[in-house]
Each structure stands twice: as structure tokens, then as C-alpha cells.
């Protein structure tokens, strides 16, 4: 018996020798070329034109072969694919309306990713309009993920960069069809040439007829070029995953960066106003500020490449933020340095210069932080709302230094009231980004929400005793507020799938 077992096991381990099949090999046109030849343009785009995906909705039925093919033909990571298939559903009466929707990068005319990238890691190819991501240029700051209204770029943890669809430009260059175009059994996806600029506006058919509760982004943010044809979307149609209460990423390095820099600056500005308040406040202010600066680095997948931040200054608020904080950086250090250096000739001059310069530079830096979020066009992150959050952190910390417990208490309570008043939107009948955020806050984030309030109240109570415990309680409370800011935001994206969602 043992001999037979050994024999069978050894037979089992034999694979066919591929050599025998070498006769198959020859350098020939791809076997699928006759199939996809009419699914890609014959000529390159002329001036005023670019390549775009066209999806015939009446031919897309949700088989998802495009997702698999994108994964396999691009050699992506084990669960990575640059395409996704979701669904729009609509109507209230049976039988209901449903449409599966395949989507990937829309190679926008005015790409949010490209405009937001601080280091120029995105390029829009001049001749084809393809939005390319330069993987080796990317610093992994993920700002493009926040900027893209379609949730296209995806972060690769093991590489510390994002990756995204490049319309299989290597294939297109050789007259081969992109993976998704090749693989669609019903020829629902093709590459077409579309007009750009003014002329494009009239011809755009991007999720035609979307209603205001669809949970899709407005196409005028980035001018997506994909054409969705073949089936009209009723105004009741909305993304099948619209109501899924999945909280967004918490971005803890950003939470720390924002709260620590803002509270650090609050302490420092207060000492500028009232220099007698003591060196301890200045020292802690500098430490917090520097800690905030350091935690920002943890948000980068490739921090050593971040020196190129100036490449994005023309369009990216993240570039501007880095510049603003870089210019600001010496001032707090000088401010604390002055306290510890023995008297020298121009010490007083230096002291007053820093004292005058620091507040405007600090406020400018915080303003750039605000604009980073405002520029994503997400409702919860609108400039008024974000300013209120960010600047109030600075002011609240400052008030503790200035030993104004009453004003601090009133302001803190006002901020809490403003935050909690948002929760009333959760019962709104119609979907809106704000109602969605409110539902997240009242649902999966309710413990964060409650803890934030509790810590804030403790800070108020403590402020009547001593500023020090109040400062640290405030830090905790504001960190939770900021976590909520990131987690409860309604991030627009292409329609996802129905059924249980995982974060």
C-alpha cells in the first residue's frame, strides 16, 4: 500500500512540461484584437479632444468581469482593482428600477487629484487627456483621495503611495484595448474621443438625470469625461450604498497635526498678547506645535520625497499649507529661544519682531489648513464650518492661558451646542450629505460624540481651578472633535454595491 501511496503522491506532483507547447508561440496580433478593434478609436485625439471611457448602461448588467480583468491584466495586488461595479436604485413601487454601474477614473478635464497633489505626481497627458499618476513621484499624502469626488485613487499601504487607473495607456499606445474594454462580455465599455473645454459641456452625459438625493458628486467639480449612455436615470435613482453608515478613515496623524498645531499656536499667541503669562505656556506651546508638525510626517507614505512640495503651489492648498507652516516654523522656536538666551544687544528688537510677526503668520497657516478641507467640496468641510472648528481650537486654548474661564466656558459650550445641533439633521427624510453625517454621528460614532462632549465639559469645569488640566482635557476633547470631523464626513463616490458594507 505504501508503495502505491508514494507512487500516487509523486504522480500528483508532476506538472505538464510547458516546452511541448512552445509550438503555440509566435509573435502575432492579440487573438482578441478583432473583437475590440471597434471598441477603441482608430486615431489619436486631435487638439481640443481627449480619450474617454464610454459606458453603455443598457449593456452593463453587473457581471463585474471588468473588475477582475483590471486586476489580472494589470498585475495588481491581491484584492486591488482600479475598476468597480456598483448599482443605482430608484422608484418606490415594485418592480423597482435598478442599474448596475461600472466605473473607474474618469480622466477628468479638471482633475481634483492633479490640482490637489502637492508634488506634481499627477499629469494629464497632452495628447490623450489620460490622467497619469507618477508612482515614484508620489509622497503618499492621500490628499488626492480626499480631492477626488469619485473615490478613485487608492492608497497602497505596503508601497506608501496611491495607485489608480491609467486607461491602460501602455496598451492603448500599441492599439490594444484597455483590460476592462477587452473583457466586457457585452461590449458595454469602450474608449471614445470626446471634445474638451467649452465644447465638452454640451455633450457631457455623465450619470444623466441624477436627482439631488442621489449621493453622486456634481460633475462640475472636476469635469469628468466618462460618458454614461443608453439608459436614462430617473430622478429618484440613488446609489445602492447611499444609506450605508460606514464611517470614513480617521486619519489620526492629521487629527493630531491639526489639534496640536492649533492648540500650540493658541498657547503661543496668548503669550504674545500677554507676555507675562509665563514661560511655561510658551514652552508647552512650542512643544505642542512641534509635535503637531512631526505627526504630519506620519501621514506621508514617502516623507523623504516631500521636499518637492513647492511643485504644487499654483493649485494645491496642501502645498500652500506646507509653505505656510515652513515659514512659520522658525518663529515659535525663536520665541522660546529668546526666553532661555541671556541678554544680547538686539534681544528686545527680536522679541518684539517675533511678537508682531507670529500672530499673522500663525493665522495664515491655520487658514491654509482650513482651505485644504474646504477645497474638497465636501459639505461638512465647508470653509465656514471648518474655520469655526480650527480657529476655535486656537482661541479656546488661548483663553485658558489668558485665564478667562468664563469666556472659555461660554465659547466651549457654544461650540458644543453648534456641533450637537447638527444631529437634528439625522431625522431628515430626504438624503443629504449633512443628514448622512448626522446619522454617522448619532450611529456608529455616537460614543466618540459623547466622549467628546464629556471631555469638553470636564475642561470647562477644570478651567475654573487651573488652566493646566483644562488645557490637556481640551486637547483630548478637540482631538475627538477632529476625529469626528474626519470620520463623519460624507465623501462622494461612484455608486457602490447593495448589501452589508465593510469599511
Amino acid at each position, binding site marked *: 500500500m505504501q508503495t502505491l501511496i508514494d507512487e500516487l503522491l509523486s504522480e500528483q506532483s508532476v506538472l505538464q512540461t510547458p516546452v511541448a507547447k512552445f509550438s503555440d508561440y509566435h509573435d502575432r496580433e492579440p487573438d482578441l484584437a478583432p473583437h475590440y478593434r471597434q471598441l477603441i478609436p482608430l486615431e489619436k485625439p486631435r487638439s481640443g479632444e481627449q480619450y474617454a471611457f464610454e459606458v453603455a448602461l443598457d449593456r452593463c448588467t453587473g457581471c463585474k468581469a471588468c473588475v477582475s480583468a483590471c486586476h489580472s491584466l494589470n498585475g495588481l495586488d491581491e484584492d486591488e482593482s482600479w475598476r468597480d461595479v456598483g448599482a443605482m436604485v430608484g422608484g418606490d413601487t415594485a418592480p423597482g428600477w435598478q442599474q448596475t454601474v461600472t466605473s473607474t477614473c474618469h480622466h477628468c478635464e479638471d482633475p481634483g487629484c492633479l490640482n490637489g497633489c502637492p508634488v506634481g505626481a499627477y499629469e494629464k497627458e497632452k495628447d490623450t487627456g489620460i490622467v497619469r499618476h507618477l508612482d515614484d513621484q508620489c509622497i503618499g499624502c492621500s490628499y488626492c483621495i480626499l480631492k477626488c469626488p469619485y473615490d478613485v485613487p487608492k492608497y497602497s499601504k505596503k508601497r506608501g503611495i496611491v495607485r489608480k487607473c491609467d486607461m491602460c495607456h501602455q496598451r492603448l499606445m500599441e492599439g490594444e484595448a484597455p483590460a476592462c474594454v477587452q473583457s466586457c462580455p457585452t461590449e458595454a465599455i469602450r474608449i471614445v474621443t470626446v471634445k474638451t473645454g467649452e465644447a465638452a459641456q454640451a455633450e457631457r452625459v455623465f450619470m444623466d438625470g441624477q436627482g439631488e438625493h442621489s449621493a453622486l458628486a456634481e460633475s462640475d467639480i472636476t469635469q469628468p469625461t466618462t460618458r454614461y449612455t443608453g439608459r436614462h436615470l430617473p430622478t429618484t435613482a440613488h446609489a445602492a450604498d447611499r444609506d450605508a453608515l460606514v464611517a470614513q478613515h480617521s486619519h489620526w496623524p492629521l487629527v493630531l497635526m491639526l489639534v496640536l498645531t492649533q492648540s500650540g499656536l493658541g498657547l503661543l499667541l496668548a503669550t504674545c498678547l500677554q507676555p507675562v503669562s509665563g514661560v511655561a505656556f510658551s514652552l508647552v506651546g512650542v512643544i505642542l506645535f512641534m509635535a503637531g508638525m512631526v505627526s504630519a510626517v506620519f501621514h506621508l507614505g514617502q516623507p523623504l520625497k516631500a521636499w518637492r512640495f513647492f511643485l504644487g503651489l499654483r493649485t494645491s492648498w496642501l502645498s500652500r499649507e506646507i509653505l505656510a507652516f515652513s515659514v512659520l516654523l522658525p518663529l515659535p522656536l525663536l520665541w522660546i529661544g529668546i526666553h532661555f538666551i541671556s541678554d544680547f544687544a538686539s534681544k528686545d528688537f527680536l522679541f518684539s519682531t517675533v511678537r508682531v510677526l507670529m500672530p499673522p503668520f500663525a493665522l495664515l497657516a491655520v487658514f491654509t489648513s482650513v482651505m485644504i478641507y474646504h477645497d474638497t467640496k465636501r459639505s461638512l468641510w465647508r470653509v465656514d464650518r471648518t474655520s469655526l472648528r480650527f480657529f476655535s481650537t486656537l482661541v479656546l486654548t488661548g483663553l485658558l492661558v489668558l485665564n478667562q474661564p468664563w469666556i472659555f466656558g461660554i465659547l466651549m459650550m457654544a461650540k458644543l451646542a453648534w456641533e450637537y445641533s447638527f444631529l437634528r439633521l439625522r431625522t431628515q427624510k430626504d438624503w443629504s450629505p449633512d443628514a448622512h453625517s448626522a446619522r454617522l454621528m448619532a450611529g456608529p460614532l455616537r460614543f466618540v460624540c459623547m466622549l467628546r462632549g464629556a471631555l469638553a465639559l470636564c475642561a470647562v469645569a477644570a478651567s475654573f481651578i487651573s488652566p493646566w488640566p483644562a488645557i490637556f482635557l481640551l486637547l483630548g476633547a478637540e482631538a475627538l472633535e477632529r476625529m469626528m470631523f474626519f470620520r463623519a464626513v460624507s465623501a462622494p463616490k461612484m455608486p457602490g*454595491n447593495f448589501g452589508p458594507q465593510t469599511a
Partner: protein
Amino acid sequence: MNPLILKENDGPLTRELVQQPGDFGLGKVPSRLKPASTTTSICGFCATGCQLNIHLDKQGQAINLTPKPGYPVNLGMACPKGWQALDPLDTPDRATSPLLRNSKGEMEEVGWDRAVEAFVSKLKGIQKDHGRESVAFLSTGQIPFEEMAFLGCLFKFGMGFLHGDANTRQCMATAVMAYKQSFGFDAPPASYADFEESDVIVLVGANLCIAHPILWQRVMRNKRNPTIIVIDPRATETAQAATQHIPLKPKGDLALFQALTHCIIRDGRTNPQSIANTEGYEEMAEFVSELDPLWAAPKTGMTPKAIEALAETVSEPGKRVSWWWTMGVNQSHEGVRCAQAMINLALITGNIGKPGTGANSITGQCNAMGSRLFSNTTSLVGGHDFAMAEHRAKVAEGLGIPVERIPHDPSLAYDQILTAAEEGRIKGLWIVATNPFHSWVDAGALERLRSNLEFLIVQDMYRTTESAQCADLVLPAAGWGEKEGCFINSERRLATTKVVSRAPGKAMSDFRIFKLIAEAWGCGGLFSQWTHPEAVFHILRDLTRGRPCDITGIEGYDHLDARGGIQWPYPMGSPREETERRLYADGHFYTPSGKARLLYSPHTEMPEMPDDTYPMILLTGRGTSSQWHTQSRTAKSPVLSRLAPATPYLELHPEDASEIHIQQGDLIEVQTRRGSLEVEAYLAPTVQRGQVFLPMHYHGVNRLTHPTFDPHSRQPSYKACACRVQTKGGEFIPPRA
């Protein structure tokens, strides 16, 4: 990284995605996955039978795959399961060594010698004490038919047991019985080309768009501007894409078809030449004479006018009408008669044997059709009958075994085997490549009968399936891609599957496991010619001589590969050039009279009707294109997993949900008389009010389903039973006024 360069257009990260020509007609491929060679293999999931081009490295190990262009089935396309077919092979929960339950009740790794010794001594012991009916096997439609035949012949002729059935009972037994009774042989008429040739395509209980996307591809290639009618209680993906959706009342299909037959006969829209090839027409006409649209309306939920209109559409003279059904019909308490009602409609309107016509079953598993001919369970291997002495003699001669070894009495069907186990008559069970502890209707019953079994053997790729975890002995099997053999698809096309990957550890192909067991049992001599799968293919091929499924014209695997698969029948001397063929063009059927039989029975209402306690109807079915059956394989693929919800959900009408304030995404419970399951609410008007839909892939779903069976096919009626929906707070959706 070069710190001096402002733009890094190239570098290690960029190079990860560089492509180069893959040769072999593949076009560009990722550089790191450039193949040294390619080979072809039929996909091992569904019965569509797509051919995949497997990309191999220098050692012959598969590294990637693409669907095969030019193959007559899939024409270079595949669904995600096909694209990801290699993923399930490389997972940590593969069974890599036999596992035997020790005295402490724990599963222990043992060598093949111990495993086989335990297998033989246990089963021989049971056989000695309780006879040849005391052990049964439950196998599968997922393995090559050479392996199926080995199991069936070894178990019945070698080991001397009687009862064996397969999970094909769950998927196409109804179609088998419908064709056998109507046509005299289990011979589905269609070729996939008929999808492209049809003017009216009627899809009944079939969601092609996600269950058989490649067949939907064929529908979309139809250039005749066809009317596509979907008959389904749900507004499925296919219903959305069709020209007409008929949201039928669950299990109203037989009544509908009988009323259509009534209208067509009443209006004289029949085809006399075609009727001449049938028997029983007068009796059937008499039977349906009272079954008018008014009678059918309340049973179908349709208006009499809509039924009349449909009758006209499907009997339009000069139009090619094709009927296609899947599990919505097969898994029904009156599925056989329902399938035959469609066969009858095709026969009386002349829609058979011509391009774009037919009453066609779309089968489930990759080798369900192989099992129908060669598994030696319901019918004697090679398309024969156990009850017929000349068939037994022919098979005995063909296999070179004594004729006394071939039983003349039939095997119990799946449900009867389990009932016998519950009653203690069957003491040993051998489960091969299937997962009944998850998939069998009223799955809770299996757990209850487990303790009645003296010995339970599970032979599978994985040690983690619900069934493997209940076993006394787990035999580690090689999976698809780790062994060779043939599959037969829904259009009767035989094609090969290849070895492209090494099985992990001590796992072996089912073929080799059977060989080992034959030797250990002491009947190895009977199978001395069964050296490897292709040798068995030749033996089986020769057995089919003179049967409707005659394939004696096929030379071997190379012939199948060279021809892009071959449809049966293919007797010696068949023309060599054709790639697609349909049956019954000559109006001749396989019955003794050569005429097709028109068969019918009165419609009966679904066995478990909703009532005050369980007021809703629970529908089950395929969830997404990336999920397969109990997900033992598809859940192992990271890509397929991201394309399907990870936990069970219940599709529920928003107005039903609002009755007890169920919100989108709420955790709720769906209950039947047999069990309950926690699910997430998915509110969508794609189901009708009073009905809910539960995808079948999740653990625990079949604890809810109702164990009734079609009386002719013994196929379980999975699709509809009574249920109720409860919130966490204990509130039920009430019966509708």
C-alpha cells in the same frame, strides 16, 4: 530615488506596472507575469463551460489566466469567477493531509495509510453488519466525469454498495427527468448559438446576467432585435435588462404555461407538422381546455389580458421562440411538469429542432451534464438503465467486470439517503466535493442526523467546510487546476481541464484517491485498466456506442482540444467541421415510438403557503456573479470577496419594511418554521410586497428552506417557503390586509 530630479517619471514603483507583449496571442501582460507557455482548461465553476487560457511559468505552474478567444462558448470572455479561478487553490485552509477523528474527538493528521485503513475497516465493518444498503455516497457536479465514473463504479461494482447520489440532485434533476420523460432520453436540445438566433427569448426563473453572464453575452450578440421576456418574481438584473419583465407570483409558472397552452390551442396558433411528432396531444388539449387566463390570473398575479398577450408573443407564426429555464423552475415542488409545460409549448408551436428555438435547461455546475451520463448514480454509466438486462450486460462487457456486480435495483435519491440515515438504515456516508451541511434544504436536519452516522467521510479541497468540520475522516483532495479530466457543459459540449498547479501537501486528485481505495478494498483488479483519466475517458467513450449520447467519434483529449470541445452526440464518422449542433432537427425523439410525449399534471399551490404566523414568502437564489454556492471557493479569492457582501442580507420591499420601521442596513431576523437567521436589511422595491429575497451563499440560509421535493425528480424546492421578518425589538411585519 534620485534627489536631484524634480520629476521621477521612472523608478521601482513605476516599473511594477510595466507591461510587455505576452506572446501566444495574449497582447500585453504585466512584465512580472509574462508566461513561458500557455495551456487551456475549462472553468470549474458553472455549466456554461468557458475555456480559460492558463498562463504558465517555466515550471508549468499557472501564474495568471485570460479567457480563451475563439472558443465557441465564451469567445474570449469570462465572468469574475473564471478570471479568479486560480485564487481558491492557494489558501491556508486547504486540506493538506488526511485528518482522522481520534479517541478524544479531535481531528488528527494521519498518513494516507492510516486514513485508507480506517476507511476500509469502518465501511467493511458496517457492510458486514448491515448489508449493501448501509453506506451511501453523496458526490458532486464539480469534478471531471472520469472521476465521477470511478466513484460510481468503485462504490457500486467494486465495493458492492447500492446507494449514491450527487449534489446535481439539487441543481438539475428536474431537467433530467423532464427530458427523459418527454424526449425518451436526457438530451437537452440547445446550442448556445440559439440565443443569437432567436426572435423571442423567454427566460424563466433564470438570472443570466449574474448567474451565467457569458450566456447573457450570447443574448446581447443577437442581431435579430429579439423580444426578451423575463419571468421572475423579482426585478433581477436580467429583468432590468429585458424588454419585458413579468413579475410572476412565486410558483405560478405552471399555471401560467398551462393557460398559455390553452390560448394557443384555442386560437389555433399551433404547428400541425410539429404536433405530428408528438403523442398525447388530444389528451393535453382536453386537459387545458378549462385552464383559461381567467383561471390562471389569481395564481400568477397577472391580468388575463397580459396572459393573452404573452400567449400571442410566444406563438407568433414565423418567429423563432426559445424557452430557457434555470433554478427557478428546477428547484420547485412541480418543476418537472413546469419544465415539460415549456417543452410542450415548444413542441406544439413548432419551436424545436430549428435555430433559435427549443425548451432549454441552463444547468448549474460545471459537470452536471457529465454526471448525468457517467456518474453511475441514477442511470447506469454511459447513458444506460440499471433495470435493463441488456444494458447491464453491455456495460459489464465494456468494463470487463462480471455482470453480477452490476445491481439491477435503483439507488435512493439524495433526500431518501438522508432520511435513511436519519432512520438509522444508512450508517456510513461518504461526501465528495460538496458541502451538504450548508447547502442541503433544511440543512439543520443534517446536523440532527449526524449522530446517527457511525462513520462520516468528507473528501474535499478544504478542511474548513461546514461538512468537513463534522467528519470523522477528511480526505484531502486536489482541486480544479490540480488534476485533469473532462467536463460537459449545458449545450452538451465535452472539453478538457488540465493540471496547471501542484496540489498542496499530501492532497491527491479524487481519481488517485479512488484508485488507492480500490486497491485497499481489494477490488483494484477490476480497475486495472483505469490507469489515468484519459484511459478512463476511452473506456467511457466506448460504452456510449449506440446510445443517444454516443461519443465514439472522439479520439481523445487532443481531439477535444483541437476542435474547441465537441458536442454530443458525436458517433464514429461524424462530420468533422461543425462547431455547434442542436438536436431534434429531424423531428425524431428517443422514445420507443420516436415521438415526443406531451406530459402534464394539475397545478398545485406551493407546499408551505404564507399564513398569519409566517405571512411572507422567502425567495432564495444567486446573490452576485462573484459568489458560488456555499462560497467554499469564492470566499477564498480576495477579488471575488470584494465584489460581494461579506455577510447575509435580506432584500425587502421598502413599504413592508416601513410597517415596523426597519431602516436600510438594520440588523433583523428572518424566521421560518425550521430556523432563523440574522441578516442586514436591504430595502429595495426589486422584490414585491409580501416577499423577501435571501441570497443562498451564506451559512445558515438553508436552515430556513422547506424540505419538499418534486415527486418525479426528487429535487428540493428551495425557492419559496413561508417566513416572517422580525426586528431586534421582536416586532413582526404583519400579514397584509
